[in-house]
């Protein structure tokens, strides 16, 4: 299967793509799902250890918390609910069993993809004239610049 590649117009200050969020409880025996939450507003953040999802996604599925966790950002810490999700990446591959923090109503993105996902793939950004973002999953290594 081809690797995912997206070329933006100009140089971007953020990497934003589409993703699909799945409720693990919806998984059928053959690996299919009946529905997903699609958004074209998912940011990739190598500075985040964890993945965040918006309150809207939590509400859309009626997700139940699987735990609580402390989340420490620039301004300090706060305890929040954790949810288990599957994440469909732009290459139409699903990464299972992500424990995602609820980013609440204030998240600028519907999904913030953290290193719990990025660390499973090869991830490349180039910026000659235009920002080009590409990744492949699973990681095959061997990329040197």
């Amino acid at each position: 299967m081809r690797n995912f590649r997206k070329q933006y117009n100009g140089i971007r200050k953020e990497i934003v793509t589409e993703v699909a969020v799945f409720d693990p409880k919806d998984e059928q025996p053959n690996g299919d799902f009946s529905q997903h939450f699609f958004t074209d507003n998912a940011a990739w953040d190598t500075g985040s250890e964890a993945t965040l999802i918006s309150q809207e996604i939590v509400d859309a599925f009626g997700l139940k918390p699987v735990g609580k966790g402390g989340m420490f950002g620039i301004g300090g810490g706060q305890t929040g609910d954790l949810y288990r999700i599957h994440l469909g990446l732009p290459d139409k591959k699903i990464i299972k069993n992500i424990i995602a923090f609820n980013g609440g109503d204030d998240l600028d993105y519907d999904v913030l993809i953290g290193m719990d996902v990025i660390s499973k793939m090869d991830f490349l950004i180039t910026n000659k004239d235009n920002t080009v973002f590409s990744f492949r999953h699973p990681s095959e290594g061997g990329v040197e610049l």
Partner: protein
Amino acid sequence: MKGLMKTNPGEYRIAGEAAKFDWANKTARVPYCRIMPQYREAFNQGTYEKAEMPGHIYAKFQKTV
């Protein structure tokens, strides 16, 4: 564009698992910051002095020039 949508059979396929969540640690660094909407225009114009938001999604900016 966003919202709940019907998933067509075979549209997505399962490819792997996320990195194992560290339940024992119970914390994660999420150095994500945002600009409060009411400060966005001023931020873009470079005339803001401070935009601050409490909570786990937190942004604090100070004009330096």
